[in-house]
């Protein structure tokens, strides 16, 4: 809304012109297209760009000046960062730079897989729970029970049952994340069910599966997408924690948690072994969180104002 003024019109002498009022709302230039969207939401652009960079690093790891990340060289143990070992070498003489770069693969694989699997499972459970009344009570009691076990402990307990492998880590973290997603989806479904357009669809004889598919599912996707980014960030942290305490990926696979766990004994004299994987992990999690915050602002302007 722009307040019009008549300052450009020739005024007869002696007439007092009202002072120009400030605009109540600054004009918003609506930018369209993908690039326009990114310019409107710089956090999405920054987070997305960082994440893209890390994905590229993970994919292109073999061609980025790395050597075999598991190659032992006992003669060249615990070297400080230098031209030969960019991030130094660990106590078995392995190149930390190569290990950290390959570690990107593990972290991103776990983060993205858990986000996808937990979202899908949570979506199904939440939709069933939100629409099938008799199942709701049973499902929700189980979800309540699972939610009262702190997620990291739940993942730790599940990992204690199985062999350490990337697949098992993904399954364990997914199980720990499902309850929260299910709750979220159920909440959204319950509020959508009361919307007039759902009543209208029911009144005009649309069958329940069609209502779910056409009217409810599309509206849960926005909050789900935002939640999925937070799950991705949290999964990457939990993965590194599991590996750090020895309950995650097997020590033969270079993951950031493993590199830090191996550097732990020496961190007081050789801090760089812990520092580089820690820095990569922090930047990755920050990128995903920025992306999530940006998406939340873009998809739900009402929430964006308050949080």
């Amino acid at each position, binding site marked *: 809304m722009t307040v019009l003024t008549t300052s450009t019109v020739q005024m007869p002498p002696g007439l007092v012109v009202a002072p120009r009022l400030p605009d109540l709302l600054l004009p918003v230039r609506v930018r369209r297209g993908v690039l326009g969207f990114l310019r409107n939401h710089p956090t999405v652009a920054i987070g997305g760009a960082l994440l893209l960079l890390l994905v590229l690093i993970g994919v292109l790891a073999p061609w980025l000046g790395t050597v075999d990340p598991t190659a032992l060289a006992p003669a060249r143990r615990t070297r400080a960062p230098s031209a030969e070992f960019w991030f130094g070498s660990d106590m078995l003489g392995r190149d930390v730079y190569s290990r950290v770069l390959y570690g990107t693969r593990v972290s991103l694989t776990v983060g993205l897989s858990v986000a996808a699997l937990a979202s899908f499972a949570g979506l199904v459970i939440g939709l069933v729970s939100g629409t099938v009344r008799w199942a709701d009570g049973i499902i929700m009691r189980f979800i309540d*029970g699972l939610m009262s076990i*702190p997620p990291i402990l739940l993942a730790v*307990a599940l990992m204690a049952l199985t062999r350490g492998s990337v697949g098992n880590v993904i399954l364990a973290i997914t199980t720990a994340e499902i309850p929260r997603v299910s709750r979220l989806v159920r909440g959204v479904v319950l509020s959508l069910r009361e919307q007039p357009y759902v009543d209208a669809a029911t009144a005009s004889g649309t069958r329940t599966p069609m209502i779910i598919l056409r009217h409810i599912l599309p509206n849960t996707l926005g909050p789900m997408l935002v939640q999925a980014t937070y799950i991705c960030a949290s999964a990457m942290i939990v993965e590194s924690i599991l590996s750090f305490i*020895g309950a995650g990926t097997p020590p033969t696979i270079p993951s950031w948690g493993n590199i830090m766990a191996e550097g732990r004994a020496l961190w007081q004299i050789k*801090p760089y072994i*812990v520092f580089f994987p820690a820095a990569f992990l922090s930047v990755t999690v920050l990128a995903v969180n*920025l992306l999530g915050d940006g998406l939340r602002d873009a998809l739900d302007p009402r929430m964006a104002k308050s949080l």
Partner: protein
Amino acid sequence: MLSYILRRILSTIPVMAIVALFVFSLLYIAPGDPAAVIAGDQASPADVERIRQSLGLDRPFLVQFGSWLWHILHGDLGTSIFTNLPVTALIAQRIEPTLSLMVLTLVLTIVVAVPLGVVAAWKAGSWIDRAIMGFAVFAFSLPVFVVGYVLAYVFALQFEWLPVQGYTPLAEGLWPWLQNLILPAVALGSVYIALIARITRASMLEVLQQDYIRTARAKGLDQRSILFVHALKNAAVPIVTVIGIGVALLIGGAVVTESVFAIPGLGRLTIDAILRRDYPVIQGIVLLFSFLYVLVNLMVDVTYTLVDPRIRY
């Protein structure tokens, strides 16, 4: 209100029952045969079978679950496979450092995060607000051990102000105890502080727009009492909820923090139990922490009725 509190307490029973069922299934489906482990390498199949019968491992799942639950309700969490000590004794040995760390972190978080959130909401949109919220996003992304190592490197190794690692029991004096816990508490609290600061700001922003705040301003109340007395009281419910939910972060983070700072607490016990596949100990710890978590959130719910008299049940 009393009947609400009673009903709320009763509602935790099915939740804890499901936790117990889950934790028991963990042991039930765990690989390895406890009877074979106890019998040792030399035992004949008949010996193993005898031990299995004496342990009741040949009975149906639900019967075993019932008897296990019966023992738990009588304070018997079983015996560690590795050390042969009762799990309750192992936990009792290690609980002080962990509880100290968690309580100190909780206090630190509330003291730091709530004022940060209030100030951010008061100065919403200003550079102070941006700085606080920027810090919150940043702190929220830093894993516990990263903060832990950086703090230990700077304040313990470089400046030598505080000990690098270890733990001193509270019985040996307040300052030695506190000295060892400051860095772990800050490390563990960083994520939690970010979370509480964000939710405090959000909740305060909503309250500050209400008419009674304008009335308070109009009648000339000073800013501090408007923010911390009038507004914060009404913004408290979501904040207290998130403090309760965030205890899960605290529990998970404590395991890692104890590992970084070499604190001999429950976290250390958990890690040892995982490496040795000592399932009764893992069970005991998961059960204890879940119970603690449920208890905290029960207290949070009960607090609502005290904080906010508008809530009726």
